[in-house]
């Protein structure tokens, strides 16, 4: 029987007439409809729950685990937070710490400060909470473009609410610092939900008088590759060609206001050695770095690297700058040292010899033509130089670069991808930071030389900028501490501004973090000591390389400053004059001494007896009796954190007797010998 004939017979048997077709199709339909519930019976999550049941069956604590296990779709529903998370349907026991060694999806969640049922999963981890299949829940699909956040960026989840520098999120915090420090926020807007855009912290210099300061050749060399000049440079690399750099330098010089600088000071080699000494004595290295003979860069990173400063700046500008920096750059962080003409000459002699032989030998620029200047101006506008630098005739551009406020919610479908970059948001951001020009030569975003770790930090900080983070209720948000702009008043205030105290010290929440907080300094110290210190600062911590410089203050200035600090910076918690003499008896002091060396082992960190004590984490206390006030010591011992939050000093929670005894002991320390310094 041929195949065709048999086929016809079969067809006839099944579909021969409408009754047969009816019966056949009826059975077929029934079979197909049966697939529908069968499909439900084999849902993916059921498989995981079954797997979990098998897993706990083999364990000794299986009975207890089984009792706590809930089958079926599990859900955290938080309507007010727009959370519907069914992750626990497969991740069955997130709180079962005894299953710590088990792999996913049954691994318990590591301890975090938040309750899982209070926030759900997707607020931090992203992904699709409502999904009950692996693919849909974790990966990017057509309906959902927010895949699970990769583990290395998990701190971005915290950053959505926490803008206050959470201690457990170093990567996020570092990323935010980088965003502000490397000028990212000068072009890109990053608005916080409380309002107010992030401000840069790198303070790019004004270029309005740049011709006084440096040469066109140096500008040319610098803008081609700032990091080639100084590894610590925060200015990014714009990838300019030689001709472009030539033209930009031409324009930058051409827009500079006419110079008003005094003629050059005399320099000499002998002065250079003395200048080096003065450089050290003035603690310039607290802020400025320099390459030493061994080729190692030492010094602070608050201010520019001075290794080759002689090739960079004009000597007459340097002299004027050292004399009073604010005259050239009113917003500078550099204090006004009261150097005399001789000292200025020494410093200029020293720094002027810090030169790079390569530079003058190799960089030669012909005088600029008008066309070059015009092209340079065009480039300056294109690259947005004025977003960071003040310039004559170029306004600061608004909305120069894309707003990054909600960049963490950017759907991957909407980002432009360079070849070879995986289609995920973190990869896109990392690629963009690492090599912006890979997305097209014409891209105006410049490149910074970030390390892999820094790129990870930056991406983390950017991923925290979700659209969700903008809509969280205020009760959940931990905003950036409000940037108070405290400015001391009056003549002392002028003086403090001139000395740039707030570059290093902070007062009332404003200022730098390099030196101690001075908010309650008036309660802490005695005026005589303070006056002496201002005129001739010595260090309290002998091992520090960063120290308070000597500003060569006049007696008048110093006492104005001391008076102001003593009156304005007093804590309301106690009165520094209120001393109960009965508590400061010699017997108490000797008891205090034994407590100091015994029970509390203060000598681990502080030096009282410079010959025997060695701990030098805390300030030296050899002259505590002349420096500090007794009530301050007492309260400090009780709870130092309340007086200076973030201080290294522990909160001892000491009882009053012990605290007074140690206070008595310390008030006896009136050693006049200048400690340390020679280390």
């Amino acid at each position, binding site marked *: 029987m041929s195949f065709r004939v048999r086929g016809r017979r079969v067809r006839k048997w099944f579909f021969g007439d409408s009754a047969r077709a009816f019966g056949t199709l009826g059975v077929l339909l029934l079979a197909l409809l049966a697939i529908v519930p069968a499909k439900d019976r084999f849902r993916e999550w059921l498989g995981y729950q079954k797997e979990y049941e098998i897993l706990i069956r083999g364990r000794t604590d299986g009975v207890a685990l089984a009792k706590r296990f809930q089958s079926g*779709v599990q859900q955290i529903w938080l309507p007010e937070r727009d959370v519907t998370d069914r992750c626990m349907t497969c991740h069955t026991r997130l709180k079962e710490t005894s299953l710590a060694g088990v792999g996913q999806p049954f691994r318990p969640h590591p301890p975090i400060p938040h309750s899982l049922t209070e926030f759900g999963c997707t607020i931090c981890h992203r992904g*699709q909470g409502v*999904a009950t*299949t692996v693919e849909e829940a974790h990966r990017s699909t057509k*309906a959902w473009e927010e895949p699970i956040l990769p583990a290395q960026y998990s701190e971005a989840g915290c950053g959505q609410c926490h803008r206050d520098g959470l201690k457990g999120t170093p990567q996020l915090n570092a990323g935010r610092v980088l965003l502000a420090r490397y000028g990212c926020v000068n072009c890109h807007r990053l608005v916080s939900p409380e309002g107010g855009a992030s401000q840069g912290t790198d303070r790019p210099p004004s270029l309005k008088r740049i011709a006084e300061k440096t040469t066109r050749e140096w500008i040319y060399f610098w803008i081609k590759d700032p990091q080639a000049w100084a590894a610590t440079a925060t200015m990014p690399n714009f990838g300019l060609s030689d001709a472009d750099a030539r033209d930009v330098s031409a324009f930058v010089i051409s827009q500079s206001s006419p110079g008003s600088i005094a003629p050059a000071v005399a320099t000499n080699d002998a002065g250079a050695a003395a200048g080096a000494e003065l450089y050290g004595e003035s603690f310039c290295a607290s802020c400025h770095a320099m390459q030493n003979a061994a080729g190692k860069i030492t010094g602070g990173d608050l201010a520019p690297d001075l290794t080759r400063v002689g090739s960079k700046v004009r000597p007459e500008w340097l002299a004027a700058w050292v004399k009073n920096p604010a005259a050239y750059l009113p917003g500078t962080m550099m204090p006004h040292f009261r150097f005399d003409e001789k000292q200025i000459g020494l410093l200029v002699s020293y720094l002027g010899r810090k030169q790079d032989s390569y530079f003058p030998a190799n960089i030669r620029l012909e005088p600029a033509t008008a066309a070059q200047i015009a092209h340079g101006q065009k480039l300056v506008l294109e690259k947005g130089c004025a977003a960071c630098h003040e310039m004559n005739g170029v306004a600061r551009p608004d909305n120069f670069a894309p707003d990054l406020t909600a960049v963490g919610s950017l759907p991957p479908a909407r980002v432009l991808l360079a070849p070879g970059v995986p289609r995920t948001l973190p990869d896109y951001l990392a690629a963009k930071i690492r090599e912006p020009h890979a997305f097209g030569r014409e891209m105006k975003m410049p490149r910074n030389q970030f390390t892999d770790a820094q790129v990870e930090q930056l991406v983390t900080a950017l991923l925290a900028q979700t659209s969700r983070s903008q809509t969280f209720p205020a009760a959940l948000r931990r905003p950036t501490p409000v940037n108070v702009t405290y400015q001391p008043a009056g003549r002392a205030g002028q003086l403090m501004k001139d000395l740039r105290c707030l570059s290093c010290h902070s007062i009332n929440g404003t200022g730098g973090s390099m030196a101690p907080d001075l908010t309650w300094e008036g309660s802490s110290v005695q005026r005589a000591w303070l006056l002496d210190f201002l005129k001739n600062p010595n260090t309290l911590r002998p091992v520090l390389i960063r120290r308070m410089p000597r500003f060569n203050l006049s007696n008048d200035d110093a006492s104005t400053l001391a008076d102001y600090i003593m009156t304005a910076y007093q804590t309301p918690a106690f009165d520094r004059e209120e001393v109960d003499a009965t508590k400061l008896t010699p017997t108490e002091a000797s008891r205090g001494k034994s407590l100091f060396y015994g029970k509390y082992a203060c000598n681990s960190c502080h030096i009282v007896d410079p010959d025997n004590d060695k701990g030098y984490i805390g300030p030296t206390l050899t002259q505590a009796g002349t420096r500090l006030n007794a009530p301050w010591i007492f309260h400090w011992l009780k709870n130092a954190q309340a007086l200076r939050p973030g201080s290294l000093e522990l909160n001892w929670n000491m009882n009053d007797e012990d605290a007074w005894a140690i206070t008595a002991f310390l008030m006896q320390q009136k050693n006049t010998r200048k400690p340390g310094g020679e280390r």
Partner: protein
Amino acid sequence: MNSLYSRLRGTAVWRSVFRSGTGDTNLHRSLTVQQNIFLHLASVKIRRRALEFGVTWYLGTLSMASFVILVVTGVLLMLYYHPSVPQAYADMKDLQFVVSAGVFLRNLHRWAAHAMVVLVFAHMFKVFYRGAYRPPREFNWVVGVMLLLLTLFLSYTGYLLPWDQLAFWAITVGSNIISAVPAMGAKIRFLMLGGHTVNANALLRFYVLHCVILPLIAAVFLAVHFWRIRKDGGLYTGDKPRE
């Protein structure tokens, strides 16, 4: 089994519902048609030629079948659907991920809707090419055109309900075409959407149109359509009118 069935048919309750038998005799067969509310729009007898597949391709029947499928699945889907923003979208996700057979019903509804549009169009063209619109069926042709429009409106209003990107932009594009109507286009669009953009009001309006108003109108037109088939001489078979 058989005796149980016949005893069941003998009960007073059964007989009160189904007055006639199921078809042992032609009388009973006729009575089932006549006495059934769903079948009584059809005649008791039908031209043999009208049953041939090539004549109608059963396109009208299949259009009606898709309509019934859509009503059944649609009513079930309504049980899990809130016509509000953005809950509507979340409901789609729920259907997909947690409702038993939810995604199947949604698929069935969606594909049946597409099928119905295709079938109704095909039905219209088939009727046209067969010349079945000729008198005395001219009014039924007009009813059919109305049903075609209703089908399109039903499908279009249903398109918005998932409240996803596809839905939102399809309706935005579609409703902008309407605003091209001279003089009152913008007003019509405003009335249709209940606002100037596709928003929560539009969703609710489309929901009510899709689930209540348009199906009711369609049901009325369908009834007329079927009734007119019978009144206009049964299904058009293309037979030459008898001399």
